[in-house]
């Protein structure tokens, strides 16, 4: 065990640096895929996945490699990873309310649970995280707290993204108040508001991971 860790340390010390893995994490329906699509489309012209009001639309990790973003004359090559929404529960009955058939709902729930497990496993491989939160909802959820605690323990740079600021009941200041120790960028991924500020923050904070 000790020898294995030593070998890993040597390997990490000498490895050449790859592109930054930017993980987009958060609860379900906070706008992760909308944001991932916006970033990918802005810099490559292609989208990553399909956003939907039905929870757990993203059930597999979706990736866009070699996305070169630019802000204030600085460039950064990133691999954008759109993660399935984190959750402590997945109830297939919830999908029935959206008109999904029972059999499909059960399959969707099964895939969703596997997606959560995959997203958690990826925490070992991401370099920087965008923790997306819905600014119209209470940010003090256990999923958010656990996610941020894990990132802190792993020393992974994190930017909080207060999404959906275009909505009337948006309260991005609640996110700043709940997690004052983290940088927060207020955006609307849907309406493309404040996205340049987000690119600037990604370049500034992701470089710390290099």
């Amino acid at each position: 065990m000790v020898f294995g860790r030593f070998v890993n340390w040597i390997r990490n010390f000498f490895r050449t640096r790859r592109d930054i893995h930017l993980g987009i994490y958060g609860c379900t329906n906070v706008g992760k895929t909308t944001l991932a699509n916006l970033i990918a489309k802005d810099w490559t012209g292609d989208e990553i996945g399909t956003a939907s009001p039905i929870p757990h639309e993203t059930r597999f990790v979706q990736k866009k490699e070699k996305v070169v973003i630019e802000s204030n004359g600085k460039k950064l090559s990133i691999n954008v990873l759109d993660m399935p929404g984190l959750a402590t529960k997945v109830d297939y009955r919830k999908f029935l309310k959206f008109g999904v058939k029972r059999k499909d709902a059960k399959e969707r729930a099964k895939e969703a649970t596997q997606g959560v497990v995959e997203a958690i496993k990826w925490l070992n491989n991401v370099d920087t995280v965008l923790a997306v939160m819905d600014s119209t909802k209470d940010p003090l959820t256990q999923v958010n707290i656990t996610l941020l605690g894990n990132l802190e323990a792993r020393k992974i740079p994190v930017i909080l993204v207060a999404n959906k600021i275009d909505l009337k009941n948006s309260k991005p200041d609640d996110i700043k108040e709940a997690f004052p120790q983290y940088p927060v960028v207020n955006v609307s991924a849907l309406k493309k508001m404040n996205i340049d500020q987000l690119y600037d923050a990604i370049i500034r904070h992701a470089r710390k991971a290099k």
Partner: protein
Amino acid sequence: MKLKMDFVSSASLNGKPEKNKINFILSKVRSGSILVLDGVMKPEEEMNLIKETMRRVDDGFPGIEVCSLKKEMKGLKLLFDRVSDSKERFWNWMIKGPPKTELKSGLTLIGPAKIIKKIKKNPNSFSVSAEV
């Protein structure tokens, strides 16, 4: 329907491998109990609890609701806490087998998502709505 609550002392979980702790918690919660611990798991353990919960989700068990309140530490207490963490990490690194950890000071409530409908958390308190 009856509502069962189990109050568990951190002493009964401290020093146990993480896998055993998670198995203990999930077996209680799957059987319908709401578990109250006088301690807080580490973020990594809590994430692994979520991961293991997802593996056990089925038609009758949609998952868990969990909420914890960690005791804020400042000054010397924080320093001792960090030293204790480093000591624990060092021993877990040295010994073979699954890591053994202790719960932090605080309070955790874990219950079946079927019963717990909402948890409203504030920085120093939380309220739970359950439906039996």
